[in-house]
């Protein structure tokens, strides 16, 4: 099939960006979307042009590196699918495809389609953990976890940290990501001692990163490659509300230790 691509090209964080149009034929329906871009890049290299920079790594939908808005939809038209797992059979000959990076204040563009998502790491550093030192764990089966609780925690824990929720949210909010991380740990018995410290620390860290607020559009859920439910946002809101009545002082840091993108 033959495609017309409009791809966002931006040399660096401070440079102005623009769409560049590329015509591409020889696209095969069994290719993944990224393989289609590989083909384009090989052509660009052959023509002496700079290839399109995009984040990708595992190419099997789990590392969360790939990040493209395809015709206005984060990760493209197929639900619950990362860009790398999206295959060209979902497009047809003659399609015009706009490819943009995640757009959010908290995710500055590094180059072309690559953005800096270290904000997510800083949120985790603020409280996305259970403070258990190596070696101090009790025997694993001494903490029974009801199956439904474990399953629900796993639903939340499936988050791959790709940032599609932020990209899809009209407000550039990170609520689904943070809610998934908070819920995963706050649901489990192991996570109870730090439950309220955690939610407060992580919500405040999210605030510092200048993400937007939740308007309950549910665009995040629709874009999430793991189909994580917005009900976790409700769960986080509940814990945050309850944290108001609890004494919570957290000793967690603010993740100044990340050598972050300096653009």
């Amino acid at each position, binding site marked *: 099939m033959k495609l017309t691509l409009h791809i966002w090209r931006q040399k660096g964080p401070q440079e102005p960006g623009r769409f560049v149009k590329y015509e591409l034929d020889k696209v*095969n329906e*069994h290719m993944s979307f990224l*393989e289609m871009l590989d083909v384009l890049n*090989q052509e*660009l*290299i052959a023509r002496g042009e*700079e290839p399109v*920079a995009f*984040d*990708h*790594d*595992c190419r*099997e*939908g*789990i*590392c969360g*590196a790939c990040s493209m808005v395809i015709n206005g939809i984060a990760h493209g038209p197929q639900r619950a699918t990362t860009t790398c*797992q999206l295959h060209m059979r979902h497009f047809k000959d003659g399609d015009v495809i706009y490819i943009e990076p995640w757009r959010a204040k908290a995710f500055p563009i590094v*180059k072309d389609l*690559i953005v*800096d*998502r*270290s904000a*997510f790491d800083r949120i*985790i*550093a603020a409280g996305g*953990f*259970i*403070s*258990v*030192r*190596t*070696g*101090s*764990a009790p*025997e*694993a*089966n001494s*903490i*029974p*976890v*009801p*199956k439904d609780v*474990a*399953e629900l*925690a*796993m639903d939340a*824990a499936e988050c*791959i940290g790709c940032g599609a929720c932020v990209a899809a949210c009209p407000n550039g909010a990170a609520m689904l990501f943070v809610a998934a991380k908070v819920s*995963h*740990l706050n649901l*489990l018995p*192991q996570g109870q001692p730090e439950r309220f410290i955690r939610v407060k620390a992580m919500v405040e860290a999210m605030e510092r990163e200048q993400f937007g607020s939740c308007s309950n559009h549910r665009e995040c859920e629709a874009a999430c490659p793991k189909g994580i439910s917005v009900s976790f946002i409700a769960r986080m809101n509940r814990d945050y509300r309850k944290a108001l009545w609890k004494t919570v002082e957290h000793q*967690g*840091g603010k*993740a100044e*230790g*990340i*050598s972050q993108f300096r*653009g």
Partner: protein
Amino acid sequence: MKLDPRIPAGPLEQKWTRYKNTCKLVSPANKRKYSVIVVGTGLAGASAAASLAELGYNVKAFCYQDSPRRAHSIAAQGGINAAKNYQNDGDSVYRLFYETIKGGDFRSREANVYRLAEVSANIIDQCVAQGVPFAREYSGYLANRSFGGALVSRTFYARGQTGQQLLLGAYSAMMRQVGLGQVKLYPRTEMLDLVVVNGQARGIIVRDLVTGEISAHAADVVILATGGYANVFYLSTNAKGCNATAIWRAYKRGAGFANPCFMQIHPTCIPQSGEYQSKLVLMSESLRNDGRVWVPKKKGDTRKPTEIPEDERDYYLERMYPSYGNLAPRDIASRAAKRMCDEGYGVGPGGRGVYLDFADSIRRLGKHVIEERYGNLFEMYERITGENAYETPMRIYPAPHYTMGGLWVDYELMSTIPGLFVAGEANFSDHGANRLGASALMQGLADGYFILPYTVGNYLANTKLEKVDTSQQAFRDAQKEVEDRVKKLLSVNGKRSVDEFHRALGKIMWDLVGMARTEAGLKEAIVRIRALREEFWQDVRVPGDASDLNQELEKAGRVADFFELSELIAQDALERRESCGGHFREEFQTPDGEAQRDDANFAHVAVWEFTGDGKPPVRHSEPLVFEVVELAQRSYK
């Protein structure tokens, strides 16, 4: 090159306890004076960084990904082994140890493997406490599943995303230390060289992948946890960024490289669909618990699989290995699939595939059970192939997956360069010539959580370390070399892209250094690799420049190292005149086509020493002494 494995004395089951009781400790006040560099943030790297930081060491952690959470450990699906014996099915530390040694075809160190089995139970405790949502029974207690190469159910799992959940656990522990300032994190930063001062590993040279800046970092200890090198095949189940550069640079600085030819070809991957293919996707081996592998009995049968009657199907694994059946170890299952396809029974495009059929299990257990166990894998399969595996069997084919070889390490996980520790897939230890399913996660976490925190301390407490800083000559020289190399790659300005070269290299490796190797083929491979490498340095085109984010440049550096490593792999395969585990030399096989080991001549670890560019490397060997286990022909029949 001196190869002293430094295995503690005493009976096997007491060695690790004895080591822990007698190793030297660093006092709490002194720990904060030491700095540790950890390269790689997968299971081994993140767990080591977290655990060492908890102890009070100053840790710097580096990864090439934009976030440490994306290290390729995240893609491990099936599970993690531990000798908990929660199933009361006869498991024990000894049995896990024995199965791992046997699974590795008796090419690993007894003491290391026993220690691995010993700490396996602690890993599960640690991960549960961190909040890893392992699968549970209705009682709330932990669930287990069985896995290839084992006769007991000892595998813990979190749906089909066990690696992800374990990594997120280790990552969260490390990020806690980042928040506390004990770990400094350098994402999108790639290690391009090791700095050795006075014979000790004292730092690394890195390139900031965003700005292109090349800089030096000094420390008292360097830990490499940079994963394996299966991407030498171009098409593998590894992430696109996985590379051998860190370990290869360390090799060229004097670290011995052990058993480079021990590579694992995983039996259950989705077959290649075309020339543009950029990677192969693995379907968890756990699928073999409930799926039956078969091919049509008739060569070149083009009927739909569902139309082929039962008596015209060859369930060849069940036929050839009645006691393990579909759960035969990976090397055996892979080779059997290749053999069936070579003989013309293969299915799908190009006849490179066999069926993995769930129809029986669905009939027996119901679709919902299969869906609960493997739902996400079936979804993934459908996303990639467009086929519904609940209705028609999956097609699978082997693909390069894991490398048992790696930098040689002693019992303390220290390489032949003092102060350079190697953990996880990057080292050679524990898995011998073949790794069993669900053992990689176990090893990575064992190394990082429970072994390095002791052995690094022991090294520091026993070693006199001069003060170093990055303005010293050794650092400046190493940095200059890296800068020159980057310039060189950019200056070739030829016609062919890095990927073209990588693909061509991969083809040579797959055809001649893959699942079945011969002397003639390996010799041919070496000649062809050298020729291709020459071409690479004359005709590669790396667009862009060195002073910003340049993905082609990153790839070029990695492929350049793969070119050198691949030759060593072929050479090691050539020298190992026996078949064992994943290394299958066609000249050495039993009459019924199984691997024929040569324990008299090859019960050793082959360790390669770099002697200079253009000079042949020197092969050393560390004899493997089996005090407890009796060497036996591995049989899964």
